[in-house]
Structure formats: C-alpha cells, structure tokens
C-alpha cells in the first residue's frame, strides 16, 4: 500500500525560535520581508513617497529650528544639513523597526497559534523591511552628500560595518520587545518614551562635542558611538572628534561596549526563553 520508502522516526522538539530548520527560516525571512516591503510600496498610491516624506519633514523642521532659531548646527558642523539628514534617516530605521516589532508577534496571532512558524522570522523580518526602507532613504542622503559638496573618501566603504552594528542592536531590541509585548501590553507605551529619549541622547541634532564634559556621558549610549563613527567615516570632517577622543580614551568606550553586548545577549535570551510559549500566551 505504501509506495514511499520507510522513513525513520525523528524526535519532534516543539516550537522554537528557528523551528523547522535554517533553510526554511531564511526562505521565510526573505519572503516575508520582501512581500511586506512590496505591500507597503505598491499597496498605497504614493507608497515610496510616504516613507520618504516623514523623515524629510522632520529633517526640514529640525533644520530650520537648529540653524535659524538655536544656531547650534552651522557653527560646529561643516555640513550640518547632511549630518542632520543622515542621523535622522539612521534613527528612523532604528525607531521604526523596533516600534513595529513591538506589535509584530501579536498581530501575526493566527500564524503563531495555528502553524508551526519559526518565531524568530517575525521580529527579524520587521527589521529587514526597515533595512529596505533605509536603503531607499540612503539614496536621498547620497544625493545630499554630493549636493553639499562632501568629497567621497575611502572610509565610505566602512559605512556598512556601522550599519551591521546598528542592525544587530536593532534586531536584539526588536526580539525582546516583540515577545515581551505578548505578556505585558504596556511595553508599547514604555518603548515609545524610551525611543524618544534615545533620539535626544544620540548626537543627531547636535555634534557630540557641543558642550564640554557631556561627550563622555553621551558615549555611554551605544547608538551615540555608532552615529559618531558614521559621521567620521561618511562626512570625513577634520574637526569632528573620533569616538575614542569623545569617550576620553579607549576605556571610555567600555560602558557602551558592555551595554551593546548586554542588550544583544538579553534580547536573544528573552526571545529564546519566551518563543516556545508564545502560542499559549496569546
């Protein structure tokens, strides 16, 4: 009766972050991210424009406020508009990816509760969709770079390395938030506030050395370190302090490094711990 060759019995281990093998995980991750990206861009009439307008509006407003009203920008930073735009674009990626991740698992309730879906795909694909957006927004940044006469240097090639760090950091936070929200609904509100604070605690509006003695404190924030390094690599301003200078020596970078590693470890740990139980908690 059975024409198929006999297959060996294999242990079924239950749900997990990667569930169903790594090939299936990556296939699903890619498909989910691409379809979501397509849905956003081809689903609405002005698709791409909308995602561009938000950071550009923010950029225009802040540019006006900080060059005309407070006059912080223009004095210390050579190409302040480009500096500001680059910062906003990168932070938009961080903020949108993490914020969207908060509700990602809960909004995929049907899939989580009724199929064996590798749980990790959900937050990571949200971040990956964010990366696609970032890619498109960076096109505008490149246009600005040339428009403001920033000379290309070989350090532009190092930019992807900073992006990789930012991606890892964003992904780790997204993982933790997505599963914590399943159990604690106020994570959404808390994260909105934290993200707002992080925006001001990162040198986006102002250069890291805007005031004496504050730069060491700023350099505790891993995002500040990444953003400052991006500024050095991309804008290549001679007067910008290196991250080591801003942190007051290599030792000053230690807190940021510790926080970075701790966030990553905690994110992965939280996710792994909660992932098998998500279907039951929903």
């Amino acid at each position, binding site marked *: 009766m059975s024409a198929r060759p006999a297959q060996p019995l294999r242990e079924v*281990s*239950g749900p997990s972050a990667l569930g*169903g093998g790594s090939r299936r995980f990556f*296939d699903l991750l890619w*498909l989910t991210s691409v379809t979501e990206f397509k849905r956003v861009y081809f689903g609405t009439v002005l698709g791409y424009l909308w995602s561009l307008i938000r950071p550009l509006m923010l950029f225009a407003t802040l540019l006006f406020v900080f060059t005309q009203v407070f006059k912080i920008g223009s004095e210390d930073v050579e190409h302040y508009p480009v500096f500001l735009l680059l910062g906003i674009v990168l932070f938009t990626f961080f903020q949108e990816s993490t914020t969207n991740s908060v509700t990602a698992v809960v909004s995929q309730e049907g899939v989580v*509760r009724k*199929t*064996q879906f590798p749980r990790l795909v959900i937050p990571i694909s949200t971040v990956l969709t964010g990366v696609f957006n970032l890619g498109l927004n960076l096109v505008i940044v490149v246009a600005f770079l040339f428009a403001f006469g920033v000379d290309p240097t070989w350090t532009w090639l190092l930019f992807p390395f900073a992006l990789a760090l930012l991606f890892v950091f964003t992904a780790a936070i997204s993982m933790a938030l997505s599963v914590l929200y399943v159990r604690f609904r106020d994570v959404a509100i*808390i994260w909105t506030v934290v993200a707002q604070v992080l925006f001001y605690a990162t040198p986006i509006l102002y250069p890291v050395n805007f005031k004496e003695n504050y730069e060491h404190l700023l350099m505790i924030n891993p995002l500040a370190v990444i953003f400052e390094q991006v500024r050095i690599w991309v804008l290549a301003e001679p007067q910008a302090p290196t991250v080591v200078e801003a942190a007051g020596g290599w030792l000053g970078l230690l807190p940021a490094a510790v926080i970075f590693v701790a966030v990553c470890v905690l994110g992965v740990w939280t996710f792994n711990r909660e992932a098998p139980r998500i279907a*039951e908690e929903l």
Partner: protein
Amino acid sequence: MDSSAAATADTPLAIQVEDLRKSFRIPTHRVDSLKERMVRPFSARDYRELKALDGVSFEIHQGEFFGIVGRNGSGKSTLLKLLASIYRADHGRIRMAGRLAPFIELGVGFNVELTARENVVLNGVMMGLTPQETRNRLDAVIEFAELDEFVDLKLKNYSSGMLVRLAFSLMLEVDADILLIDEVLAVGDAAFQQKCADAFHEMKAAGKTIVLVTHEMSTVEQYCHRAMLISDGRIEHLGDPAEVGRHYLRLNFESDTSEPESRPAHGSDEEVRLLDIWIEDAAGERVTNLEHGDRIRLRAELEAGRDAPGGLGVGFVLVNADGVGVHEFGALATDSYGSPQLSAGKRVAISAEVENLLTPGRYFVHCGVSRANNSGVALYEPKALGFVVFGGEAHSRGVVTLATEIEAVAR
C-alpha cells in the same frame, strides 16, 4: 475498511507518541501590565493548573487515516497543536517519520493583503517547500482551485469559497507525508465537499498519513481506519471507528446530565421524606443514561415522618425535556404484611420497571406522595430525578417510538 486497517498495521510507524502531558497555568488574576506586576508582585503566582493532556500514548502507522474525537475541551486540539509543534509538551515525547504539513487549519497562513500568487509561495514555504519548488507547483495549485483568472487578485477580494478552494488545493500540492487536519470537511458547498472526499480517497490510496480531528462522528466512520476518543486529557477508547463512535455518543450524554437540583434537607417533622431516587441498570449499578430499549428500573426510598394510619400512595410522572408528561405510574405503600398502615420512621422501598419506548433525549421524574384517604398531598418533588435516553431512532420527532407496521403500496 477492516482489510485496509489490517494492511496499514504492517507498515512502519509514522507517528509515535509516548506519555504526552501538557498542562496550562490559568492565572486566577491575569497580570497584563508591568504596573500590576510591580504593585502586586506575588499575585501572579495564583495559578490554577489545567491538565489538558494527561499521559497520552498512541502510535499511527504510515498510510493510516486516523481520527481523533472528543468533546470541546477534551484536549484534542491541544494534542494536535503538540503534534504540529505549536505547543511544547511538558512531558513525554513525539516522534514522526516524514514531512509534516504544519497547518492545523485551512488557509490560516494567508495574508489577505497579498495576491493569491504571493500567498501560495509564502504558504508553500511555510509548509516546508523551497521557494523554487513552490513556484513550480503554483500552476497546479491554481488550476485545481479553479482560480486561473484570479491569481493576481488580492485575497481580501476573494469569496470565502474561493479562499477555501485555494487553501485546500495548496494543502494537496504541498505533498507532505503527514497531514494534520482540524475540522475542515464541514466547509464549502456540496460540490467542493465531494472534491474533498475524492482528494481524501486519493491521499489514502497514495499511502499518506492523515490525522483528522473532529467532533463529527460520521466523518470519522466514513474515512478513518482507526479512531481515538479523548476525554479529560486521557484516551477513553482507541480502535475501530464505529466502536469509538458508540463510546463518544455515550460520553456525550453522560456528561450532559447535570445532577438533579440538590434536594433541600427536609426537617424531621415532615410527613414524608424522599430519601433517595435513582435508576439502575440490569446489574444493579446506578446509571444516569439509558439506551433506548433498556428497561427503566426506577428505585426510590421514602421515610414516613409521622404515623400514616390511612397509608400513602406513591406516584411518579415521567416528563420529557419540554415538560410534556409521557407516563404516570404509582402504587399504595404497604408494610410486609400487606397492611397500608405506616408508623413514623418506617421506610418504604419503591422498585418500578418501565418499558423504555422513549425517543432519545432528556427526561425527568416528578415524585409525589398522597394520603390514601384522599386528604391531600403529603409530598411533591418535581424533577426528583433526571436521566438521558440515547440510541434508537435519533431523528424521531415523537415523544415515544411505538411498535409500528406500515406499508406504502403503489397501485
């Protein structure tokens, strides 16, 4: 059906489940926010343990069509979710041979914002194919579902019938070795149901292992080689589908009989007390349900609270769930010498045997005691006993089924 069941018994195992246990912790007070957790750090520890599965072991052979039945909350869906790796077992192990379609419901992975084409690819990958394999099978899926014109239409614009067709044909094309199916056969119109039935027979012929969870006994008897009845997280019966069906029916009626309203404790100054009333089976065991045709062996015990010089008449009225009286019967209580005179403290044992022509359903017995000299009612207890009749002609609309001879002859 028996011959095919014998045939699959020789094939290797497809699923092996050993001592599976799963319990859920139901918080008596759900902590949904961090604030609550901080304000009352220990309140979250108030859990009620719900044993959804309590030591379940069974084996399914390759090529077998296996049915799992049970009432709501019996643990059958939990078992399916454990098999599908949606839940993690607390104890025990599950082993499987071959690729499993990790879906327990048709079309659950669909995203209505995407087109049929995108959904098929996404869901195919979810079911374990590579994106390339899925694209190769896309045409076959769409063709079987008869949706060629709508392949680039978003699913939100599909009718529910179209969705089901798409989901079902996708499930067939994915070609998994083991399929877990939760109540899908009831969907769709008659034509589609026929298509499902054909597909299932094909899958049976192809030697696929199918686990079907349902509470539709007819489906189980129609398709399954073997079936399993789950009740309260345990296996109640495993084996021949027809046998399981009978157990299931019995179980359904058994737990449907709620206890008759507890009788208030009567004061000792009462004239007559109904101490107990029950129905027995032929072996003398108390039962709460009877199969149609089994005689109703009613037993009751009374106690006279005061002297009853004129004697007591005991009567019972059998009513159906709508309160319609079906049958009334009674007797004069006498002592062992045949005298109707009863002194205070005397007990009377009543034993009646009634022919059971009742149609399946719920019935109640009212109990009444009257003074024999016609001077009024000494006791009246409505619904003193409730019981269920099952079996027989399930679709009869009458109150009773009477022996009937009927013929209809064309002239």
